[in-house]
């Protein structure tokens, strides 16, 4: 088990009467420790930490949209395409990212740097279209903003 998983879960254990309540936090931490997704060894680490089975962890991970069971890029670019964003041009924003990155929604760039996804409502409908980059909201985003957003992410270490 990673020491981070052990340390962070240790701080949370006393908050719940049932250790299974920690499963989402544990999977989130394990995912961060495994390059953004949950390979089988990550599920085993969480299972060991919570004294549950890896199959139980898989059943949880497969249910929630923010937990990934296949490799993802080092950076995640998510474009909300639900109704409010769709009505004000989300598809043009998706298309602009797809052009800039050379991938379709649901795909990862060949260099492993970016995964592009369409997502359901992120709760930024009043500043639509909403783009979420590595869990931080950018709102609103227009197609013309896209090259600069990608450039800024590429400039990060």
């Amino acid at each position, binding site marked *: 088990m990673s020491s981070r998983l052990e340390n962070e879960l240790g701080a949370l254990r006393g908050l719940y009467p049932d250790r299974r309540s920690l499963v*989402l936090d544990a999977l989130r931490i394990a995912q961060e420790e495994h390059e953004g997704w949950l*390979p089988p060894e990550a599920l085993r680490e969480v299972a060991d930490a919570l004294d549950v089975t890896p199959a139980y962890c898989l059943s949880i991970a*497969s249910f929630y949209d923010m937990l990934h069971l296949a490799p*993802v890029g080092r950076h995640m670019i998510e474009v909300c395409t639900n109704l409010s964003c769709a009505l004000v041009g989300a*598809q043009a924003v998706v298309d602009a990212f797809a052009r800039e990155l050379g991938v379709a929604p649901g795909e990862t760039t060949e260099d492993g740097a970016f995964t592009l*996804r369409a997502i359901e409502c992120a709760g930024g409908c009043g500043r639509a279209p909403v783009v979420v980059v590595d869990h931080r909201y950018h709102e609103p985003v227009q197609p013309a903003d896209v090259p600069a957003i990608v450039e800024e992410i590429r400039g990060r270490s």
Partner: protein
Amino acid sequence: MAAPELLMAGTKEHDLTRLDGYRAVGGYAALATARAREPQAIVDAITTANLRGRGGAGFPTGRKASLLAKDTGKPVYLVVNADESEPGAFKDRDVMRFTPHRLIEGCLITAHGIGSQSVFIYIRGEYLDEFEVMRAALDEARAADLLDGVTIVLHRGAGAYICGEETALLESLEGRRGQPRPRPPFPPVQGLYDAPTQINNVSTIALVPKIIELGPEEFAKIGPPSAPGTAVFSLSGNVANPGNYERPLGTTLRELIYDVAGGVAGGRELKAVIPGGSSVPVLTPDQIDTPMDYDSIGAAGSFFGSAAIIIVDDRCCMVQLALRAAQFYMHESCGKCTPCRVGTRWLVQLLTKIENGHAEHTDLALLDDVCGRMLGKSLCALGDFAVYPVSSYMRSYRDEFEAHVTLGGCPFAGSSSIEGIVAPVDQHTHHATHVAGAAVPA
């Protein structure tokens, strides 16, 4: 008329994310007042104020508190639903990030009222900034000895619309897949960890300090008697000035759209209004004089929902909009109940066929039939939410659906405002796909 602010009061003038800022507007004075009273007096005040839940159902909050099982020998839990995920809704997000202490104070007052020592706030996983603001505020409140033995836990979700449904939320909080429970037993009797549990929306709980501060009689004078107080109305879509606006319940849709939010963007023609988030039946332009309160919107054939008003202009193809809504519910159906799991797929398939011009008139009848077979047939409301957009768009914009069949294609001919919109269900898999050359997971 100056709009009274209750939830967002002081947020423009002060930094209410800080304890000193919140204290500067009288913050936590209501908590001291409440703790000097008997718990039942707090529940009575909420009942007298006639506060109704701001999460969607509009259930009277005081009555909900009175349903809690007494003397069970188990703890009583207060759970705050901050899993705001309804398409069009973004009110609770602003409450948390601009006035987190108001929510914490509401939790502490309510906990006193129902005799709870343990509060869980379930925040949707995507709201990371809001979680961090809440965590900092909670740390401040704890350091200032305001919790008085009450534990408040901020619990992050991980991306699932269904976890906004209260029993799915409890399942998720207990570490399971977010699948709704059969009722009875209801959560006030057997909720979190099988103990009596009160579940309220963020905005409901954040109104409680104002009920104590103003007094329930004064609170009840704001808005209509059947549903007093304010709501943060979220306006989005084709509107000139989208955003959150706090107004009394009973404000008409016309006032909200035209006077408050500047009307339809670009001066275009209003085509449709979805008054309570994507899961409620659509209203047509001739219905916008309806007041936004539970009873009035109900009488107009829709729901107040989460006060999330989506404005649609004349450029939008309603078949495409229905399809995009249906794709959302298919993606979010938890899979537990067959009518919802299978029915949402039928809706998407039939609407795709209609939009692509491959449908016969009998397919419209089949779509009506599928809606009828889904409505009221599942454990939770998601199965109904999937139906309402489809059945109501079909009813109010029938000519557009017919035209797709008659023309053998979309009458908007590529010019609809949401043409080609991609949905998560269109992606290759539920997850991001593999990197070329990378190892396939075992």
